[in-house]
């Protein structure tokens, strides 16, 4: 097994949580975000699809979704930035015994509403949502979604039938959006008891022409929203780039001038609800950056127009793929923006995308990049 290094982090430091197909890594820096210390690999050999740093109620708790094709999936936590991780005797995410399915992978971990600092959510494959109200000690299936009549018709996308995105509305604890590949966007307005498909205007390119706007079944790759305006959402689809201004009731195409509207990664500027970042890919058949140029595209007007950001990024022979959880911002001002590629390269910007720095390469395929600013 490889030698494992660790990072230290003090108040105001930035920590990148990087999940790869063969373990997790932590990168730590001060507010300048130019020099990075690396920790890991943690869980060598395991695919880490989701990471989160829970600092609510004075915690310093990392969560990792640990996936093994042989031994199953579970959530592990660390209270000391990765020096020790829990290895639960009994797995903590399980479908009930009477369910018609069993857990394949854990795809997402998210904090609950600010009023519920002990609440966590977890998205899994096959598509389902789990909830914990005791800070991760115990978990239960959200039956309102699991029992949805659409569920038998959801189909797996290329990565599997996964619930990969969880957006808690910060202004309304009863409202949450989730995204499923391939099921589409669903919203609850009653704390998870009932859910409604919210895909009007979103194209399903893989269906016959007269069926391309179904009620559900779209292959949504990612959705984001800004805390200051949670009714505005952005959506990167399996072909299609959209914005909603009415809480996902309807969606409008905003692929205005991007080299491709296919892609996965999508992130919003924490300091500006109109600024969004994407990394377009050429097509579903050739999931690499167009023209072999690694470019992040940014809109500052909520999708009316887009501009490429390439300063410091390779512009030749860059056949890169950035996945749905592969890009993240840090919440500082100017925002730090980070993304990882399937070729194991990690890039960062400390000026909201104006310039970029290669932080690491040679990592295993990166599937998850999350950020945390130490309180």
């Amino acid at each position, binding site marked *: 097994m490889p030698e494992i290094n660790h990072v230290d982090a003090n108040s105001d430091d930035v920590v990148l949580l990087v999940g790869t197909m063969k373990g997790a890594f932590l990168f730590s820096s001060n507010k300048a975000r130019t020099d990075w210390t690396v920790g890991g690999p943690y869980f060598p050999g395991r695919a880490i699809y989701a990471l989160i740093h829970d600092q609510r109620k004075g915690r310093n708790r990392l969560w990792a979704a640990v996936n093994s094709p042989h031994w199953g999936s579970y959530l592990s936590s660390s209270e000391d930035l990765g020096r020790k991780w829990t290895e639960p*005797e009994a797995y903590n995410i399980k479908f009930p015994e009477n369910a018609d399915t069993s857990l394949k992978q854990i795809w997402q971990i998210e904090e609950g509403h600010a009023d519920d600092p002990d609440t966590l959510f977890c998205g899994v494959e096959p598509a389902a949502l789990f909830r914990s109200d005791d800070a991760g000690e115990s978990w239960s299936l959200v039956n309102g979604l699991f029992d949805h009549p659409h569920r038998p018709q959801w189909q797996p996308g290329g990565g599997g039938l996964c619930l990969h995105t969880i957006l808690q509305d910060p202004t309304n604890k009863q409202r949450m959006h989730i995204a499923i590949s391939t099921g589409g966007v669903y919203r609850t307005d009653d704390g998870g008891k009932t859910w409604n498909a919210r895909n009007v205007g979103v194209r399903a390119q893989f269906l016959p022409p007269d069926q391309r706007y179904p009620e559900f079944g779209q292959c949504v790759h990612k959705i984001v929203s800004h805390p200051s305006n949670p009714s505005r959402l952005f959506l990167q689809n399996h072909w299609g780039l959209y914005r909603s201004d009415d809480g996902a009731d309807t969606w409008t195409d905003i692929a205005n001038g991007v080299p491709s509207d296919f892609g996965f990664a999508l992130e919003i500027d924490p300091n500006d609800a109109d600024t969004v970042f994407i990394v377009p890919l050429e097509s579903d058949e050739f999931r690499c950056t167009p023209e072999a140029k690694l470019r992040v595209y940014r809109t500052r007007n909520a999708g009316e127009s887009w501009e490429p950001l390439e300063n410091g990024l390779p512009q030749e022979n860059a056949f890169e793929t950035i996945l749905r959880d592969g890009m993240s911002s840090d919440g500082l001002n100017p925002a730090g923006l980070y993304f990882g590629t399937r070729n194991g390269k990690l890039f960062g910007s400390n000026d909201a995308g104006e310039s970029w720095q290669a932080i*690491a390469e040679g990592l295993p395929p990166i599937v998850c990049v999350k950020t945390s600013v130490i309180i």
Partner: protein
Amino acid sequence: MITINISGFLTDFTGGRSVITIDASPATIGDALSQLWQMYPGVRDRVLTERGEIRRHVNIFLDDENIRRKELLETELPESSEITILPSVSGGLNSEGTSRIGTIVNGLMFTLPRKSLPGDVYDALSQRVLDSNSNRTRYEAPAPANLTNELLPQPSITEHTTHHLKSNKS
């Protein structure tokens, strides 16, 4: 008496024991495994799904036979049987399309049971399989000639740390 052999990772949940004996005479593989879970509860969820099924990429051998069928847990257990729990290994092929010590069937590599080889040989080969699985290499495209360290840091984390990163070893 029943003997249960388990592989490296699972011994994290058996106090390091790789050979476990059950003095009773369980009637089926399922009964024997239930006793194993009672002795070492941490093994259970690694081997079984929440529906009580053997995980897809875990192989159970009864003596020399790989028992991968739906009725696995109901398989009758002769006295003095030996059960071996091993991870299957997909991929890691050599150029002939066969694995190092097993054969690919339907995309899964079935490793040899313990009794089929002398113990030390089995252990050595089994470890090779486990190593090849955990360190399996992926396809690496040749580095483009004009994509060099002007834009990218050094090619490994170890070297990288000397230029851009500080490393805290524990």
